Each structure stands twice: as structure tokens, then as C-alpha cells.
């Protein structure tokens, strides 16, 4: 569905992405892992056209989109929902206005219909009765849920999650992970989750990819990825994932755990 081909991006002399190749299949939940600053969030911004790649191509449903004009890009963006790291809710608006923003901007729906959609999306993320609150009145977890409801409002084909559990307590993290998995099952939507939280990664992924030094160094299902013999990947998994998620009898993990 989305194809990232040989993408490079340089910031201030540092190659953040260095010929990255990545395929995202329709209906899957791909978790992109990597150390802080390895270019995971930059990848999402390049896919959504927020920043331009220095070279390489991005394909979306058979169309090359990296050089798309802004008007066409804006139309394409309606197929993409994004949950930002900070939720990025508009603080001058209420929760309901935030969720209805895209509907208000891009459709002729009446207020009643928009209210109905807002209520429906809020119940999808297990939130009710917060329509009239301002983002400042919400907790971190609630903000993420509202951000997710806003991302779902236009019924996107792809949802991009930028560090969905960063800054949340463990209980809320687990709830958000559960929500991502539930939404994937219920809506059959394609999801790309960027995270360095291994608990989150193993909870939601149907496929995982690891970026290091601006390139993909591993790719596969959660079961496959544990068995890939790569020290950087295995360190990342062992230091990051809680024991209850990993099968510590796995020979590959045992091997790296012993080092």
C-alpha cells in the first residue's frame, strides 16, 4: 500500500535516513522500531509530506507522492490519519471541535451529523462525556485517545502513530496498546506505529521493522524478528521488552542474554 524506496534525509550534515526501503502492506500493523533520533518520526513526516526527502520515492496505492503538488497532496492526506506524539490537539477548540475539524473543513455535513460522528468516534476510543472539554482539561492518556478519535474521524485508510505511548504511565500505555489492537481488528485499517517502547511494539505489531543508521536492518513478524541474528536488534529487544512478552527459552534471546 505504501512503499518507501531509497529515501534519504539529511539534517545539518547528519544523514538521518540513508537509503531507507520499507514496504507497508494493506491491513497490517507495522511497528517501526529504532533508537531515539534514528529517523522514525522523520519517516512519518516524509510519508505525510510534512517534510520532503532529499532523494528517494514514496508510493501510495500505486502513485508516486513525494513530488505531488500541495493541492493533490491535501486530497491524499484525507486518506491518512495521524496520532502525534504530543497528540497535537488544537488547544483553542473543544474536544468535539477537534474531532470534527476535518469534517468541518472538507465536507458539507450539518452540525447534527457531525455531532453524531464525534460521539461515535469518541466511543470507539472508550471516551464519553468529554465533548465540551478543552485539551488542557484532559489527562495525557485522554489526550491521546482524543487525538486518535480525531485521526479516525475521516475514516482513513492508514493510521500513523508517532510514539503513541510516550509519556504515559504503564497502565495507560497498556490501555492505548489494547486500543490500537482493537481498532486494527474492528476497522481493518492499515497502521504504522513508530515506537521504541518494546512492550507496545510486541503488543500491537503484525510485522516489525528496525531502523539503524538510517537503514532498515531487520524486518519480519514478531516471532521472526526475535530469531534474527543481529546484535543491535537483539540488544534493543532484550533491554526494552518485558520478560512476560518474550519467550526467554528462545535460543536466540538466550544467546544474546548471555553476552
Amino acid at each position, binding site marked *: 500500500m505504501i512503499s518507501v524506496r531509497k529515501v534519504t534525509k539529511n*539534517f*545539518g*550534515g547528519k544523514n538521518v535516513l540513508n537509503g531507507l526501503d520499507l514496504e507497508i502492506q494493506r491491513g497490517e500493523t507495522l511497528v517501526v522500531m529504532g533508537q531515539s533520533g534514528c529517523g522514525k518520526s522523520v519517516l512519518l*513526516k516524509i510519508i*505525510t*509530506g*510534512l517534510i520532503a526527502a532529499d532523494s528517494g520515492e514514496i508510493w501510495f496505492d500505486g502513485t508516486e507522492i513525494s513530488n505531488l503538488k*500541495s493541492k493533490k497532496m*491535501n*486530497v491524499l*492526506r*484525507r486518506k*491518512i490519519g*495521524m496520532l*502525534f*506524539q*504530543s497528540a*497535537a*490537539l*488544537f*488547544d483553542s477548540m473543544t474536544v468535539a471541535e477537534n474531532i470534527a*475539524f*476535518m469534517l468541518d*473543513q*472538507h465536507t458539507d455535513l450539518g452540525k447534527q451529523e457531525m455531532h453524531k460522528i464525534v460521539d461515535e468516534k469518541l466511543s470507539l476510543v472508550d471516551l464519553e462525556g468529554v465533548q465540551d472539554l478543552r485539551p488542557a482539561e484532559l489527562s495525557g492518556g485522554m489526550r491521546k485517545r482524543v487525538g486518535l478519535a480525531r485521526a479516525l474521524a*475521516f475514516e482513513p485508510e492508514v493510521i500513523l502513530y508517532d510514539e503513541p505511548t510516550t509519556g504515559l504511565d504503564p497502565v495507560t500505555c497498556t490501555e492505548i496498546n489494547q486500543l490500537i489492537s482493537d481498532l486494527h481488528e474492528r476497522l481493518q485499517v492499515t497502521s504504522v506505529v513508530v515506537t521504541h517502547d518494546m512492550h507496545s511494539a510486541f503488543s500491537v505489531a503484525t510485522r516489525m521493522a528496525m531502523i539503524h543508521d538510517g537503514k532498515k536492518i531487520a524486518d519480519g513478524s514478531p516471532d521472526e524478528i526475535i530469531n534474527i541474528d543481529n546484535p543491535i536488534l537483539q540488544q534493543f529487544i532484550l533491554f526494552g521488552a518485558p520478560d512476560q512478552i518474550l519467550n526467554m527459552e528462545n535460543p536466540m534471546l538466550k544467546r544474546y542474554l548471555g553476552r
Partner: protein
Amino acid sequence: MDQQSTTNEASSGFPDLIKIRLHNVLSEIGQAFTLFFQTLIQIFRPPFQFDLLVKQLLLIGFNSLAVVIVSGFFTGMVLGVQGYIQLKPYAVEGSVARFVCVSVVKELGPMITAFVLAGRIGASITAELSTMKVTEQIDALEVMGTNPVKYLVVPRFLACSMMLPTLTIYSTFAGIAGGFIAVVVLFDVNGYFFLLEVQKNLFIGSVLISLIKATSFGMAIAAVGCYKGFSISTAGGAEGVGTATTGSAVISLITILVLDFVLNHVLFNILGLV
């Protein structure tokens, strides 16, 4: 970009430093003009969101009215007092009304209004937009298929351009009223004579010049405020917002002064308007 220029500056000699600084300044001016032209293009592109414009007109216009009137009033009073004191030794204190009227209409009305709005509105636009930038709200707008220039800059730009001349009219009237009260109460000048002199010296051309200046100042304040708000990097944080806001107020004030000189030269010297 900021990080790169800092790195470059740290490893460069003095002539290179000047070159880098000059390059940065020219690059900023280029980016500011790009945003300005994008704004002009977006003004004429549908959809036209009048609700956003009305909100900004109220925020910028109605909420600034009191402070603009008070500033204009006291500026007029100072002009009246100073004018009378300076003109009296030459026995031409009767010209104080002309002095107040011409100064306020052609120069101080639009200038004081612009200064007040640069501090009050220009800085607030920068603070709001730069906070939106660092909290990724502007990125969110773009991802949702909404052009941030159209949604955020155009209403502020139009509202500033419309409200500055409107507020200038109020500030000019307040200025003349201030001058009137100062000289009538403090120096026993005949009030009827003062008003007659004002009437004789208040030309439609002068009012037009005042409004042209005010509109230009309004555009400059909005353009600088929006550019400074948009130009902050996402990693700038609270410190970046503070720096951008201060920078916006300073650049707006300097731009107003430079623009005032250019407009005075063009309108009075080249076009020969009175």
C-alpha cells in the same frame, strides 16, 4: 537550519561570520517574502472562511480599541502642550491646532496605533503560532489536508490590514480631542477657534495618506508576526517561543519606522501629495 548555522558560526573566522550572518538575514527576508506572497495568493483562493476573519477582526479590532484611544488621546495632549510652549515665544501659538491636527492625522495617528498593535497583536500572533508549531498543531493541520497559510495567516493578515486603518480613525480623533482639551484647559485657548483651525487643516488627502499608511503598517505587523511564528523550529520549545515573540515585536517596530520613512518619501516627495 538554526543548528547548522550555529555550528558554522562556531568554526568560522570574523569575515566568514559576517558572511554567514548576512546569508542568514537574507535567507530570512526571502522566507518572509515567500510567506507574504503565499498569503496574497491564498486570500483569493476559495474556500473563504468568513467566521475565522470575523473572530480575528473582533480580537484585533474591538479588544484593542480602548488602548488605542487612550494612547491617541495622551499623544494628542502631549502634542498640544509641547506645541503651545514651542510656538508661544514666536507669537504663533494660534497655530497649535494646525500643529496638532497635521501631526496626528498624517503621522502620529497611524504610527501610535501601529506601535500599540505591534506590541499587542503582532507579539500575540507570534506567540500563538509558534506555540502551535512547537506542539505540532500546525503539522496536524497540514496532515488533515488544511493549508496552514490559508487557515491561520490569511484571517490574521486581513484582520490586521482592515482593523489598523479603522483603529487609526479612532486614535486620530482621540489625539485631536486630547490636544483640544490640553490647550483649552491648560492654556485658555479659545475652543471654537481651535476646532475652526482643525476644520481648515483637515484635508481628505491627508486622511487618505493616514489610511494608506495604517493599512501598510497593518500588513507589516501581521506578516512579521505570522512569519516569526511559523519560522520557529519544532524543537525550539518554550525558549524558542519567547525569543520569537520578542523578535516579532522588535522587527515589527523597526519595519513600521522604515515603512513610514519610505511611505513619506513616496507619498509626499515623489507623488507630491499634501
